[in-house]
């Protein structure tokens, strides 16, 4: 296990890094959503993460739970579309699982991550292979758990699993969300939500590990 557990500052760094990555990849996310959706995933998530950064800057939450819940509530209130409630619920459930503490050890972070992913399933009813963000997040949570108690290693494993899950969405035919309307035409395109989820895990590996 890493020497330093995840504290509020680290979580704040994670969220900030994710916001920066989303801004950087906004066009790519929108391009992916143009092919099998409605061309708004990049703008939606960028708008939401800008609002999250602003909210955290002004409120400066002092516990992991408060920070994660504020993130989730802000996403719910600013993103809209499918990804707003889904990412919003993810962070809200993470925050609830984390609780009003100042640090999370590797196990606690893993439990929070697992709870967040559970929230996405509760909201969106996605199953593995439906070609959604769940296809990146579920393997990430599994890999994290399987990696043992070294936080850095676990996060790297999670991020790599998320990348593989994202890539694995390409050949799939979508069964959830807007892409499902395309039927067979959704095959051959990478899912935008799985792509942003892989960014989220990569930012975690960079900032928390």
């Amino acid at each position: 296990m890493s020497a330093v557990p995840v504290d509020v500052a680290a979580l704040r760094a994670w969220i900030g890094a994710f916001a920066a990555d989303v801004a950087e990849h906004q066009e790519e996310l929108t391009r992916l959503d143009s092919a099998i959706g409605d061309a708004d995933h990049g703008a939606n998530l960028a708008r939401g993460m800008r609002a999250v950064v602003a909210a955290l800057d002004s409120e400066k939450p002092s516990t992991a739970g408060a920070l994660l819940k504020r993130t989730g509530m802000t996403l719910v209130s600013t993103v809209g579309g499918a990804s707003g409630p889904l990412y919003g619920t993810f962070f809200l459930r993470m925050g609830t699982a984390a609780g009003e503490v100042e640090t999370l050890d590797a196990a606690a972070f893993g439990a929070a991550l697992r709870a967040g992913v559970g929230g996405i399933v509760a909201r969106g009813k996605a199953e593995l292979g439906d070609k959604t963000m769940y296809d990146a997040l579920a393997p990430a949570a599994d890999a994290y758990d399987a990696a043992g108690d070294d936080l850095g290693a676990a996060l790297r494993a999670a991020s790599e699993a998320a990348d593989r899950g994202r890539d694995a969405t390409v050949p799939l035919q979508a069964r959830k969300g807007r892409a499902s309307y395309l039927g067979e035409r959704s095959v051959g395109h990478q899912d935008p939500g799985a792509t942003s989820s892989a960014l989220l895990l990569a930012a975690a590996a960079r900032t928390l590990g």
Partner: protein
Amino acid sequence: MKKLINDPADVVSEALLGIAAAHPDLGVDHQNKVVYRADAPVRGKVGLISGGGSGHEPLHGGFVGPGMLDAACAGEVFTSPVPDQVVAATRLADGGAGVLHIVKNYTGDVMNFEMAAELVTAETGVEVVSVVVDDDVAVQDSLYTAGRRGVGTTVLLEKITGAAADEGRDLAAVADVARRVDAAGRSMGMALTSCTVPAAGQPTFDLPEGEMEIGIGIHGEPGRKRVPVAPAKDIAEMLVEPILSDLDFTGGEGVLAFVNGMGGTPLLELYLMYNEVAKLLAKAGVTVVRSLVGPYITSLEMAGCSVTLLKLDDELVRLWDAPVSTPGLRWGR
């Protein structure tokens, strides 16, 4: 991208300023991007709200007014509104008899309205019933999709259900009318061009000269298949046939036939399409008793159209004919 806009990020809020300025009968909550009847809430009447992504105008804000919606919330372009907006609209529409949420069946819309309904009921105790519109026969309604999209029937449902609420029925009865309309309506759409989401800055998909998309929705998304451009009469067949094979439209009081423009197609062409649709319906033994032709549920500047058929009974005809007074639909007062 060529558009009459300023900053792409401000399109919706600036358009709402224009709606407020142009329609003294409407109020606009600019913070929450909600358009509402200036006289809302109407005491004792079931409140009707809807909402969704922007870019479908006149849907939904243009259908706010006596005889139709009490409030409508406008999301970003093609992005469903967030729960806060739906909560604000619900509060504005609540006249003490409960509020009906009219939700087009998209994952985002359904989830955001759901969260809002939970929130507003918990906070204020207002009774909310949601009705989901899913009328697009281009989408297989199966375990393998998010279910059929809500498209053209939404316009007809908002009008007819608004008339039912106007008659003083209770929430359960109003919701029942809404569900009956949804069950009786079927739609199918096509596109000659894509459209450009302002924040994206370029067309959602490429559609070369000589090709068109069949089975599109209202979000500039590609459709079920791409085929060579065809004469209007063949296009009419590609839209009408799947509708007729999905539901029996003969019998009853006949149908309401609705040819909807996607935004960039001139009215001249929509009337020409209506003629083709009317001929096909006559041949199929379907009696048209009411009609609607024009751009009512659009996809920004997309060129194309959709056809909606709604099977009517005596009561639905009467509710359709009842007075309505909104920017988008108006008669009888």
